[in-house]
């Protein structure tokens, strides 16, 4: 195994973890048109559900993902219906409001599970060709993010996804076609929250479970969603993987301390070069 190829493979996996979070955020941004800063809290919720199940002897990632998705969907629908939808016309109130929601959740998690870090067994990595280690959580993150994004893309391309696409493009037309735009919005919000929680449940074995664990992945997936252009699912996946590889390569070849700075600097440069995001918007009509 050459260290560099291991680092690059791990970078792809790290990118998979960003993509997993970014998928839900992009869906919310596209359909509900809201930057959801409570997405990290739902990620944390999923991790705690996985921990609570593992404590009770149910250490199956699928079970944890399903249960946490169900819980998060319920909370997400509530949040979407009672908080996000009523104040949608004030786009600035929402990031702050959802951030407050994340703080609320962090404090609640601290009160329920304690502030101390908790942990679930990781499981030994698989050994791939050439002695490359395939970290379990990494493979799970990569495959599930690819599946999730492909599923989203498929959904948006087919008939059942038509309402989502229409609302993302033009709400007035969607409304005039008799769609219940409000309901579709909060159901989408709930669905995206469920995706975040499932991600948290799947990734929980990779590190420590703490109330504030959702903060770090939130920033990077936010970066991915905004730069990738919000509704281009392929770009989200590619950018996530690219950032993952870049971060790891920088950490290995230059200095780990500056890998975060390198990612942010790369994003800043990208924005300076392409002020409208990496997906060039087609001709805008005035």
């Amino acid at each position, binding site marked *: 195994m050459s260290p560099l190829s291991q680092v690059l493979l791990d970078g792809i996996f790290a990118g998979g973890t960003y993509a997993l979070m970014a998928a839900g955020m992009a869906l919310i941004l596209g359909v509900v048109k809201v930057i959801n800063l409570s997405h990290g809290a739902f990620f944390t919720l999923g991790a705690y559900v996985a921990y609570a199940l593992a404590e009770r002897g149910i250490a199956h990632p699928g079970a944890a993902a399903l249960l946490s998705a169900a819980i998060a969907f319920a909370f997400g629908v509530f949040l979407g219906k009672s908080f996000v939808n009523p104040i949608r016309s004030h786009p600035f109130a929402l990031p702050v409001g959802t951030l407050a929601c994340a703080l609320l959740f962090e404090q609640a998690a601290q009160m329920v599970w304690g502030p101390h870090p908790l942990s679930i067994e990781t499981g030994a990595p698989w050994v791939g060709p050439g002695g490359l280690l395939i970290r379990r959580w990494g493979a799970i993150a990569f495959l599930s993010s690819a599946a999730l994004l492909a599923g989203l893309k498929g959904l948006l391309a087919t008939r059942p996804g038509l309402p989502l696409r229409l609302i993302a493009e033009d709400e007035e037309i969607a409304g005039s076609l008799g769609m219940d735009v409000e309901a579709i919005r909060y159901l989408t919000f709930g669905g995206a929250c469920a995706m975040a929680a499932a991600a948290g449940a799947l990734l929980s074995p990779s590190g420590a479970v703490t109330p504030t664990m959702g903060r770090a992945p939130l920033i990077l997936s936010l970066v991915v969603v905004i730069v990738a252009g919000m509704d281009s699912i392929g770009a989200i996946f590619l950018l996530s993987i690219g950032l993952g590889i870049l971060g790891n390569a920088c950490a290995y070849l230059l200095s780990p301390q500056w890998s975060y700075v390198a990612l942010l600097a790369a994003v800043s440069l990208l924005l300076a070069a392409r002020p409208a995001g990496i997906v060039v918007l*087609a001709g805008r009509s*005035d």
Partner: protein
Amino acid sequence: MTALLSAEGITKSFGATRVIEGIALSIAPGEPVGLFGPNGSGKTTLVNILSGLLFPDAGTVRFEGKEITRLPIDARYRLGVARTFQIPHPYPALSVHEALRVALAADPGNRSAGEGARGDEEGAIEDLLSRTGLFNQRLVPCALLSQGCLRRLEFARAFACRPKLLILDEVFSALSALDEKELLDLLLAANRDDGTAFLLVSHNPPLLKSLCRRILVLEEGRIVRERRV
């Protein structure tokens, strides 16, 4: 007679689609010109290029003999090329009066005039308000204006720079008959009294015929016909 605005070889693509292909046109001072074309023929893109909101991939735009191809829209406004939008984007929190102050403040001649400019500015705003019939609405926040009033405000905003050329994008669509008539009168008066040239984009051939001396017909990114009325 030298052209007020002339364009040559204007070409613009978005990604792989070529929206406009080698357009040439010229507008004489004080000339009312119409632009007609079906949906998707590239009218809006052409208007955006002429007004400076977009820059063409190839070709040149000249105004009074000076090249302005890559001059942004705000600089063109200060030269005297004003445009209105098909869908107005008002400043929600500003009143009509304030919206006009913004347009007047942008004029460097106005700003450098110093102390005395303040009174002139008030006078100019009052003139614009009464010409467009917005005087009673002058203190209303733009967010609360009706569609008709918003269109009137677009006109007032465009007239604030004492334009030599007005580019009007679908400005009479979806208006009440009264609003339409008053704005038409306003446009014709400006053309007659101040010699303001205009390029009027519309779907409506009778309207174009009644207002313009020359109508350009755009199809699939090319000017296919030019009709004189």
